[in-house]
């Protein structure tokens, strides 16, 4: 726990330094707020502006998108593992689509689906589907033949073999895909919400931070950034690390 202690001390020092710079009045207050006013803004955001429901709204969109994306990735990747022709074609599709940033698809999505949830979910699916597919295909094709033969020997085939052997054996790759997909979806979501915010719909956290800027509420902007960081920390340490600890780490598949 030594690393954690050092890190906490650093964070405290950083906050103190921030406050000292603020009290030296080196920058105008409108651009460099005090620590207390940031926390005030945070409190107000949750109390008056319903920041919490915006956070949940944003997260619910990601969740829907990720869920659909993950399911599609599993279906397509499983087909790709079974069928060589599909593998070649899907491999090409994944390689191409993986190069397109989610936001770059936004104009197309707006024209197709209009401004609303569907467009956001579309971008979310795009963010998770390709990295997830890449990871699953890589993971599935690197499953040791001995596990597959052991599975076949005990009578597993088709979907049973995929769920019983391929999936757990490739779980390290699956987790990597989830991490990359989540990171892209989260970044994409905030960008998309900001763009939507200017046109007046889609009240998520991206829209909130954008509105704080419009009100030249620098404390509010920084407070929202804190919330974004916090969510990232919760997802990484609360979800991914926990899953990792209880799966691949426990199984001795990673050290």
């Amino acid at each position, binding site marked *: 726990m030594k690393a954690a202690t050092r890190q906490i001390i650093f964070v405290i020092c950083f906050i103190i330094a921030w406050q000292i710079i603020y009290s030296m009045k080196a920058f105008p207050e409108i651009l460099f707020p005090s620590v207390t006013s940031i926390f005030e803004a945070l409190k107000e955001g949750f109390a008056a502006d319903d920041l919490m429901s915006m956070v949940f709204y944003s997260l619910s969109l990601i969740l829907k998108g990720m869920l659909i994306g993950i399911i599609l990735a599993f279906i397509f990747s499983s087909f790709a593992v079974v069928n060589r022709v599909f593998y070649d074609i899907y491999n090409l599709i994944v390689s191409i689509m993986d190069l397109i940033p989610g936001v770059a698809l936004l104009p197309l999505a707006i024209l197709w689906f209009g401004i609303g949830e569907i467009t956001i979910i579309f971008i979310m699916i795009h963010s998770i589907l390709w990295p997830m597919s890449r990871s699953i295909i890589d993971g599935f094709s690197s499953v040791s033949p001995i596990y597959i033969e052991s599975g076949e*020997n005990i009578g597993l085939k088709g979907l049973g073999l995929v769920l019983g052997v391929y999936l757990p054996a490739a779980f390290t790759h699956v987790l990597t895909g989830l991490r990359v997909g989540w990171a892209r979806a989260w970044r994409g979501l905030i960008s998309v919400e900001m763009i939507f915010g200017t046109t007046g719909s889609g009240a998520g956290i991206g829209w909130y931070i954008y509105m704080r800027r419009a009100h030249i509420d620098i404390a509010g902007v920084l407070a929202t950034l804190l919330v974004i960081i916090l969510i990232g920390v919760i997802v990484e340490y609360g979800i991914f690390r926990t899953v990792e600890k209880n799966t691949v780490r426990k199984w001795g598949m990673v050290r």
Partner: protein
Amino acid sequence: MSSEIKKTPVLKISGLTKNYNDAPDSRNIIESLDLDVPDGEFLCILGPSGCGKTTLIRCIAGFEDYTGTIEVDKKKVSKPAIDRIMVFQDFNQLFPWKTVEKNIQYPLKKNGTTDKEKLKAIAKEHLDLVGLTEYKDFYPHQLSGGMKQRVAIAKGLALKPKIILMDEPFASLDAMTRNRLQAELLNIKQKENVTVIFITHNIQEAIVLGNRILLMSKNGKIKLDVKNQIQKPVTPASEGYGDMWKLFNEALQSELDQKA
């Protein structure tokens, strides 16, 4: 031996030929091989590297396609199934994501045994058999190579297969562990009347374990087929051991000379 070995062949192979066809000049690994294995036999197959002994056992397991016929209990082998369980040489054949106990129970569950108490009892019985009862909650990566092989054998036995196919399961173990596992396997074999086909390149191992020993030659044929009637447990001091060893050693040497 407590019970007399019945003479009905559990495994009947006739005219087996196998060619991987992976190169324009690829040769037949196994060439029109005939073999009958009676129920309850402990058959050891010796042979130089590349003689096709692993290919033979993989054909029996159903992992390879072949020409000719392989019948287990008069049913033609076409794909892997639980009546023929394979124990590999590789220590990493257990599923690392399941505990020792679950590794044994999972195949049973997938084949229709769902009663929790029954599954527990079967796992315990077979872990007792290989002396790993207290390791039931361990994950494979926490076990030594010898323990993993024991679990793999227990897992195979729990499925009550007609034949256990062992592809050099002890070849990667140190000599001491190997000797212990050989003794344990013989012990198990006396308790459970299962047919064992055991591949090895170690003459001593074949003589210690088998009650019948085959030697396969480089061209995929059976060169020697000998009943091993040396009293178990076999040691190098056992009567007939020296002759048996010499017989197989000379045959093996002449195979190796041909290659050079």
